[in-house]
């Protein structure tokens, strides 16, 4: 599985949506992505990529696209 597939899959599993629906998704676009859903998303991302995210990055991650940008940062080193 590529990192992009792995990343997309976290959204699919956490929010019970399709891979297509995950593209371009933003915080609160769907009921499932509220604060509770966000916590689930962060836990799932941390587990999938074996990382520990910083507070600022956790609250900054407000869209599918933004998440890729954050995970690409050097401290997490996920390449897409």
């Amino acid at each position, binding site marked *: 599985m590529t990192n992009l597939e792995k990343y997309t899959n976290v959204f699919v599993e956490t929010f019970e949506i399709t891979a297509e629906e995950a593209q371009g998704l933003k915080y609160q676009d769907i009921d499932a992505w509220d*604060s509770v*859903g966000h916590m*689930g998303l962060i836990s799932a991302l941390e587990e999938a990529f074996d990382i520990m995210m910083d*507070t600022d990055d956790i609250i900054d991650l407000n869209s599918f696209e933004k998440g890729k940008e954050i995970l690409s940062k050097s401290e997490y080193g996920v390449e897409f």
Partner: protein
Amino acid sequence: MNKIWELGRYEKNIALVDEFGNELSYADLENENKKLSDVIGHRCLVFSLCRNEVGSVIGYSSFVNNGIVPIMVNSHLEEILLTTLLEAYKPEFLWLPKDQRNQFSNMSEKYEAYDYVLLETGFKKSYPLYDELGLLITTSGSTGSPKLVRQSYTNILDNAKSIAEYLKLDSTERPITTLPMNYVYGLSIINSHFLVGATLLLTDKGLMQKEFWNFFKDQEATSFGGVPYTYEMLDKLRFYRMKLPSLRTMTQAGGKITPELHEKFAAYAKEQGKNFVVMYGASEATSRMGYLPPEKAVEKKGSMGIPIPGGKFKIVGADGNEITEPLTTGELVYEGKNVTLGYAECGEDLVKGDERNGILETGDMAQFDSDGYYYIVGRKKRFLKIYGNRVNLDEIDRLIKGAYSIEVASGGTDDHLYLFVTDEEIADEVRNFVINKTKLNPAAFKCIVIDEIPKNDAGKTLYKELEKYYEQ
């Protein structure tokens, strides 16, 4: 009708600040309140669709302070459930966010302020209201049951005074909103802080949003409240590393926090010179009944504390006698002026008087230690707290049976609700149905297919036998 808040007393203080740059002094708030209550002009029932916005607070404080009785409902309540509630109570007016106005296109607009509008419902009939009735709260905001808690003016004022006393509130406090206004814990923060002329920081943003923390820091918030799930989120956010010099107090209620998190936040508070206050309450007691004094937070972890000023606890055994031995479990009974009048199940009940006479059987099983600190150990009734929201399991079963005519039983632990069905094909649909009805995050719900719902000879569901499916 006595006023709850003497807003004029603090006319120069700032009452409300929101994230969009609005700022209202106590004089401004009193002025806005008067304009709105003058349009209504008489004592009647109003549905208030709540958000943490200026308009919502103006509505609430105007109604309660001027003898108009609001029913507080979440603005996101599912439409069918809202319609059911409206039909049951036939309010004369609706006070709601302007962007939801088109849901009620047949109603006429009477007034507008701060993105909220007042609509006249046009119901021909209205129900008489008991003189002391001040406020109506839904018992389970999420399942839309028409059952309401009837709170009196005395209830609201007495509880607010008690909270202001034990939290030592003054006009320098700046609480930031983290709880909805249709939820008594959220209201109790407004009620107690308006008594002392403090400044409410209003935002509908959540803890997981950058905007929330920017607003928190810019406006130098001094306190916030949270349900157990809030503290799990803060833990996940590595809250302990955030620099929040303005923060003085964190309160916790709406269910029992895990002893691990209790310890973590108590230790953090102690180290940082802040207060962490675990509290206990219920909408049937207006809001608060117990609190753990912050200086005891570390020593008495797992305890919800002692009665609030003016209140009393006792533990009653199955035989109806008071238990006086420490560490013996019985039902927790509370006595105080904040014990509400009773319930309403339909419009005709709004004229009812005080049915409880200051005594509340909480339905929580509890015990106290040798120092007189109380611990909640279980529940008498079948309900769960999901992210701080009370969800009645019997009501969930009834909703599902009503929609699908199937065998079903629900169970679980706080924040984890399990639906047991016997038909695999319908499992996903039932789960989605419940998610949609409760509007709670799907992560809390699981549907498990079993061969048969366990029942005794009399046909009563044996919920205990389902516990093996979800107990770790």
